[in-house]
């Protein structure tokens, strides 16, 4: 990380302010005016639009293995995805994913 201390605090506080304004938005400022359905429809997809794209390169080319595809990490990611999809349970998905990662790292002699 090469930011100055001031830049890091700027990021933190700007993010805090922006997040708060998003949370307050309709509740505080716009009042009772209903949101256009087209906007609501787009907003519904923000989490599944941002997180998968962020994760994909981290899964395929992890920094910890110098950007080389790492079978244990790839397998753990797929298991987490499958369990999260099937159980709809965050903790179950994380637990199974972590267990898979450690089991695979151990089997391949990395642990």
């Amino acid at each position, binding site marked *: *990380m090469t930011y100055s201390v001031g830049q*890091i*605090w700027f*990021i*933190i*506080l700007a*993010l*805090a302010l*922006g*997040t708060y304004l*998003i*949370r*307050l*938005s*309709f*509740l*505080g400022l716009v*009042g*009772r005016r*209903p*949101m256009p359905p*087209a906007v*609501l*429809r*787009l*907003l*519904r*997809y*923000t*989490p*599944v*639009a*941002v*997180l*998968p*794209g*962020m*994760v994909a*390169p*981290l899964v395929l080319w*992890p920094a*910890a293995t110098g950007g080389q595809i790492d079978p244990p*990490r790839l397998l753990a*990611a797929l298991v*987490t*995805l499958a369990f*999260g*999809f099937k159980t709809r*349970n*965050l*903790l179950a*998905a*994380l637990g199974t*994913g*972590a267990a898979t*990662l*450690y089991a695979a*790292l151990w089997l391949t002699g*990395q*642990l």
Partner: protein
Amino acid sequence: MPATTAKSAYWSGVRDGLPFLLVVTPFAVLFGVVAMDAGLTLGQTMGFSVTVFAGAAQFAALQLMVDNAGIALVLLAALAVNLRMAMYSAALVPWLGAAPLWQRAVVAYVNVDQTYAVSMVRFDERTDWGVAQRVAFFLGVATPITPMWVAMTAVGALVGSRIPPEWALDFALPITFIGMFAPMLKTLAHVVAAAVSVAVALALLGLPSGLGLLIAAGAAMVAGATVETIMERRAA
């Protein structure tokens, strides 16, 4: 149904919020660990959890900061993760819009996935509740979650440096993100949005850090909304 006071509504909110500690605690510890590992100070790490108070966005910002992305891109990408909360804010207006502004301002600070999801279900059930009970319930749900998020971030930040690299904590972040979005893949539209996000993000990996992701997110949102519209027309 017996009349509920604001006080008893508050305590039933606290009870409904308690199970979420199981999710919040490991998440917050992990953020503390990853943030210190990325090179933030204890004060900066705590600053994130206290003022931003949004798990996924904090992790997203951190990831981009590790990549030394431009500041504007860090902010845009992390705020995009939080845009869903504008939807929560809009959905709460019919229930809480009549509360005094200062109460709505407090509600907004703790307007997160868990408080929103639990409250919407309960407001639907308890049609006898007035706005005072609803506000009390909402803040009740937030009561166990908020301090725990902050305290457990500190725990993670303080113990994190003692965790050896063989534990592969680098991969805690991707696994956490996957665990967060996988349960959201409820409809074909959500699956298409996620697939477009991955495809475009990988295709644009050569762009400056964070920029490809923003384009991918925009394309994925449009793809999801379009599929939803098509499916609705077909069903009609």
